[in-house]
């Protein structure tokens, strides 16, 4: 019998860790969403005269914005991991990666941002070099490219999900060691983590119904479950 917990027990651990701490987590998630949305506006409103310069600059902005967003995600991981181990979490922990061992945090975040950029590159190229008048079925092609980019980004997020927790637990390690360790740790458990994420779909549907308001609580739950998954993985793996 597998020593690893089933997803329903991981979710139960996640709920237990959130009891009495929802204010902190919801405010942290709200601040994270607010900052990433504000940063994303930079990409959306970025235009320049020349096509090539526009493309290059929007890619650079995408990279910088995603690196910052990934740094904030490290902070979120810190908050939820603290709760998982029964420690007090503070909202200022959201900036943990900017304060502690920031060189390693920047390298890990930038590495993931580069991979995400690679996934979204076809969308950038398509938007830059083609317009709706040029080719028939423009919107369908755009949608397909966007969806494939999104699937790639999700795959990367899952593959490197544990790196952020390793960064928090093993502060003396280099970024390369942490990235390698993260991928090694998740090997054989990718499907399990993916199923864990999928199990939140009904709650995300409720979030959509609530015009996004409930997503603050649902995201807290998802992050807490991810932290519980890491805790379970570390407890049963020789790392």
């Amino acid at each position, binding site marked *: 019998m597998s020593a690893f917990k089933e997803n329903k027990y991981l979710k139960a651990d996640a709920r237990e860790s*959130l*009891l009495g701490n929802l204010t902190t987590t919801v405010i942290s998630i709200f601040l994270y969403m607010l900052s990433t949305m504000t940063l994303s506006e930079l990409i959306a409103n970025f235009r320049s005269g020349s096509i090539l310069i526009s493309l290059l600059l929007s890619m650079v902005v995408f990279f910088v914005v995603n690196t910052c967003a990934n740094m904030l995600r490290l902070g979120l991981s810190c908050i939820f991991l603290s709760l998982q181990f029964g420690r007090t979490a503070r909202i200022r922990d959201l900036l943990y990666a900017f304060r502690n061992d920031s060189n390693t945090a920047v390298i890990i975040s930038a590495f993931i941002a580069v991979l995400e950029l690679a996934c979204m590159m076809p969308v950038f190229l398509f938007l830059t070099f083609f317009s709706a008048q040029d080719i028939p079925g423009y919107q369908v092609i755009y949608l397909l490219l966007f969806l494939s980019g999104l699937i790639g980004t999700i795959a990367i997020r899952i593959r490197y999900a544990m790196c952020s927790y390793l960064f928090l637990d093993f502060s003396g390690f280099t970024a390369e060691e942490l990235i390698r360790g993260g991928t090694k740790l998740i090997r054989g458990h990718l499907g399990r983590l993916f199923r864990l994420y999928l199990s939140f779909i009904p709650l995300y549907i409720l979030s959509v*119904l609530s015009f996004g308001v409930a997503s603050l*609580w649902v995201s807290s739950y998802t992050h807490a479950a991810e932290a519980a998954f890491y805790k379970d993985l570390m407890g049963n793996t020789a790392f």
Partner: protein
Amino acid sequence: MTQSPRDRLTRTSMSLAILAIFSTLTFPVVFPFIFGSLSIVLAILSKGRRETLTSRGRTAVWVAAIALAINTVMIVSSVMYFIRVLHDPELQEQFSKVLYQMYGMTFEELLQQLGLQSSTLSNL
């Protein structure tokens, strides 16, 4: 007496469920969806490590689900009634009369104000 975080969460969930039902009857469409969804999410979170909801949590989920269902039925039936109004001239006349009595404008004027044409909408 201080309440445990679980009890506080269940109580909040129940309050939101009641608000969802109340808003279904007073301010339908947006508020019931917000309160109802949030109530269900909080009720689920209040379970903690337990496998089942508390009786109050279960009530909150039921009340919120009923509010969501009523709200959805109201929206769907309104849209279906509107489509019927577009296709049935007799019903359109009745609707126009009621609209004129309530807001002082006919159905055609309302569509004009919204920048729509009844001929385009008839294709629905």
